[in-house]
């Protein structure tokens, strides 16, 4: 069965610093991979997704992620964090289940930003 691990429950960075959120997945075939962001009290918004092709994908709000098959990882990065990036971030893998693709989510990483 597929699974997603986000090793960091909570990360704190200073505004302007770089950011990397880790995500490792387990899936037997080529995965579809996603990063979602959730601001406090809100639903989840798609940041970026990887289906195939270039392993470095660009998303909204200046985020990017790199798919590394050899490491089963899909880490999210941003070169300079803004205070508005404080949120919870979820990595997910799409896998076949009951005839269609379903997402399995990691437990999330909460990002705090120090002004």
């Amino acid at each position, binding site marked *: 069965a597929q699974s997603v691990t986000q090793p960091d*429950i909570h990360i704190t960075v200073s505004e302007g610093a770089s950011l990397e959120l880790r995500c490792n997945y387990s899936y037997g075939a080529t995965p*579809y991979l*996603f990063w*979602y962001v959730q601001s406090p*009290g*809100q*639903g*989840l*918004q*798609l940041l970026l*997704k990887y*289906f195939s092709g270039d392993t470095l994908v660009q998303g909204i709000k200046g985020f990017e992620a790199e798919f590394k098959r050899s490491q089963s990882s899909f880490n999210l990065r941003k070169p300079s964090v803004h205070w508005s990036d404080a949120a919870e971030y*979820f990595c*997910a893998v*799409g*896998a076949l289940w*009951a*005839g*269609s*693709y*379903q*997402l399995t*989510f*990691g*437990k*999330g990483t909460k990002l705090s930003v120090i002004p």
Partner: protein
Amino acid sequence: DVKVTQSSRYLVKRTGEKVFLECVQDMDHENMFWYRQDPGLGLRLIYFSYDVKMKEKGDIPEGYSVSREKKERFSLILESASTNQTSMYLCASSSPGATNTGELFFGEGSRLTVL
């Protein structure tokens, strides 16, 4: 702009009450989902539906039921609410289409408190 709308953002109910959470999407998506989100546990799938009047159990269906009488509407029902069902409930939809990857579109969530 695509939209998933959850009718109630905040609800407070008493133990034993019947609770309805409504979700409507305007994207003509076949698949709809109900997740529960709790701190430290991430998103857990309660039920999903891949067509009108069809439903499938997710990871934690106990204590819940669902109804899908129209394509655009998916309702989550708590027959007799209990305090351990206090949580954030997220509705999502997706299209199986030619590029079926599992990508989900989320509503803003319904925060339910059961007293």
